[in-house]
């Protein structure tokens, strides 16, 4: 094994030393995500499929770039994720790591990526710290972050008349951050927050909290939670006639896979923000159609779409620079505008934040839906500059 490492490093050194050989760049991309737990449906194997599609669509082989995609399960455990990441970088010759949902694992992988000077394009995690106080020059945060979700859902709801809010907040740092960002947006847009309740995490029964929310007479109930907490709360809100009673539910972190799990009967009327929806235009529809064929009929989530789009942009930068040196490629990625059928035109900020529009959606009534996966109707578009945190406020050390 030692010998192999030496060989690999020698090979790598030769490669770098001889630009003439750069025609045969070979890239190893690792998709590291949850394949067995809570986030397996929104990332999981689907993200691997998306990565392979990016390689295919880029026609890498024709351009003299050999791309190999590997994958592993981090089981949502930071220590498992960081061991795999280290091993991938140190031993297996992986050049970039994609996806990585679960903020704790993402922050760890981002840190290791910086240490080993590789590239990490995150799609699955929400923490805005990745491009904020924990930012580094090797990490790009692609699809969404909690700040943008709060901006989208909070701001747009107030403009649509939902000016008084009550929060159900999962009682841990992530929930608190969602609530904090959303409250700030609500207040900034002229709304008010009439109350909030901290719910134990993870929770099963939210009826008691929903009752408190109902009694508050707030127009909007903001769900500052994620995963099964959110689906449980939405299911029970339906049961207690909350939406029927005129209050709106706003999900601060809901994926299409969650809506699929709830069914329209339970989820109807829910308002949420996403950066990608398969049925947005011809481009997204065509791609999603192909994706669904490979993924057992399941349409892509924004996280999976982000893996595709991120890898595609990376490969373009490799092609343009004829190099896989991390600094060179990342610099090129930030310099080149991004453009693909899924997220449209965009850019990457110096702090690693990928910029694109966010969309506010409302979940359709069962009667409005034409069939499986026809779930959203678009309420409004939030331009990238408004959606993401102003660069100066991020606290990222790369921004001077």
């Amino acid at each position, binding site marked *: 094994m*030692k010998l192999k490492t030496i060989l690999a490093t020698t090979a790598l050194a030769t490669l770098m030393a001889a630009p003439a050989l750069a025609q045969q760049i070979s890239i190893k991309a690792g998709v590291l995500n949850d394949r067995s737990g809570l986030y397996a449906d929104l990332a999981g194997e689907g993200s691997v499929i998306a990565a392979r599609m990016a390689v295919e669509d880029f026609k890498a082989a024709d351009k003299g770039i050999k791309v190999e995609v590997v994958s592993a399960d981090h*089981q949502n455990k930071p220590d498992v994720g960081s061991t795999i990441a280290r*091993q991938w970088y*140190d031993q297996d010759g992986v050049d970039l790591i994609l996806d990585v949902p679960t*903020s*704790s694992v993402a922050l*760890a992988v981002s840190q290791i990526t910086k240490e080993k000077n590789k590239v990490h394009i995150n799609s699955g995690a929400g923490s805005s710290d990745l491009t904020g106080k*924990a930012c580094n020059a090797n990490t790009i945060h692609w699809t969404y972050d909690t700040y943008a979700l709060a901006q989208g859902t909070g701001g747009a709801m107030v403009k649509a008349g939902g000016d008084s809010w009550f929060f159900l907040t999962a009682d841990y*740092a992530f929930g608190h951050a969602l609530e904090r960002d959303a409250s700030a947006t609500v207040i900034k847009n002229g709304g008010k927050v009439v109350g909030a309740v901290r719910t134990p*995490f993870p929770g099963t029964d939210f009826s008691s909290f929903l009752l408190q929310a109902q009694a508050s007479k707030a127009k909007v109930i903001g769900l500052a939670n994620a995963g099964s907490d959110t689906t449980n709360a939405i299911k029970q809100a339906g049961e207690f006639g909350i939406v029927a009673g005129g209050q709106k539910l706003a999900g601060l972190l809901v994926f299409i896979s969650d809506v699929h799990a709830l069914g329209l009967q339970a989820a109807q009327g829910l308002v949420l923000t996403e950066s990608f929806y398969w049925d947005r235009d011809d481009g997204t529809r065509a791609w999603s159609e192909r994706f669904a064929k490979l993924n057992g009929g399941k349409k892509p989530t924004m996280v999976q779409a982000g893996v595709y789009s991120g890898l595609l942009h990376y490969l373009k930068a490799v092609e343009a620079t004829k190099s896989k040196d991390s600094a060179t490629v990342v610099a090129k990625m930030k310099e080149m505008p991004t453009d693909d059928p899924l997220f449209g035109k965009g850019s990457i900020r110096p702090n690693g934040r990928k910029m694109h529009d966010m969309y506010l959606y409302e979940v359709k009534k069962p009667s409005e839906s034409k069939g499986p996966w026809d779930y959203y109707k678009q309420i409004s578009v939030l331009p990238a500059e408004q959606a993401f945190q102003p660069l100066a406020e991020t606290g990222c050390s790369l921004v001077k």
Partner: protein
Amino acid sequence: MTDLASTEAAGVALSETDDSTARLHRNLFIAIAAVLVVAPFVAYPVFVMKVLCFALFALAFNLLLGYGGLLSFGHAAYFGMASYVSAYTAKNWGLTPELAILFGTAVGAVLGLVFGALAIRRQGIYFAMITLALAQMVFFFSLQTPRFTGGEDGIQAVPRGKFLGLISLADDRALYWLVAAIFMGGLLAIYRIIHSPFGQVCKAIRDNEPRAISLGYRANRYKLMVFVLSATLAGLAGATKAIVFQLASLTDVYWTMSGEVVLMTLVGGLGTVFGPIVGALVIVAMQNYLATLGAWVTVVQGGIFVLCVLLFREGIVGVIAKAIKKPL
């Protein structure tokens, strides 16, 4: 009374340490030391360090179950809390790694003393349940104090620092020697404890508590003592792990971590000195190399659990010990 280890484990009472057994054990220690020296050049050092941390954790757990006869289902509490404290002090107070580890270990010990004092008053299933409940409280505490634990993000980017303020541990190899030394120290300590008069009394209590009491031993004192020792060593493992991975997170205090350490001990061989090391190696290797299997990992883990309970209650090392008719 729990007679888990006495009836099921190695099958040979360790107290009858005759000369040939002592020689065998000495040779084994030398072999382990040799493997430790060669390991980082053959295998990936970070992986070996992970195995060592978990092996120490399993050894600590086995001390309590195999020699104290007490099944704790909440050992994640000491492991995880020590890991938080070590990460926190290294990162926020700027302590050198050895001090951070010591600090974490000390907290593990204190926690062990408090929880142990509560738990040893009950036996068997009740004991297991109390330890589980107490560990759950530690989990909720960790979840609720993001200022200290970083909430669900955990404490990230913990500096490995300089050993004694002099030798940088940023290089995996350099850190490896420290971890190997800690592991070896822990293993020798446990071996000493088991074979000391104190260890003999613990086994006597495990096998027949009323008799030990009638002989004049204060059973609860011994139980508390072995509990605290176990928690301390679990803390040492957790504190070291925080420095190795440069992070401490909720995973370390969650109840599944308590389950994992039971699995490691069971696979390796309950109540054997060396079993938990083998068990930890098997389970950690599985988690690492089966990572591509996705959801099947839990199925495989569960399957091993079931098979172990049904067919290999002695565990891998236990089976070997039986075959060579010597306690290991």
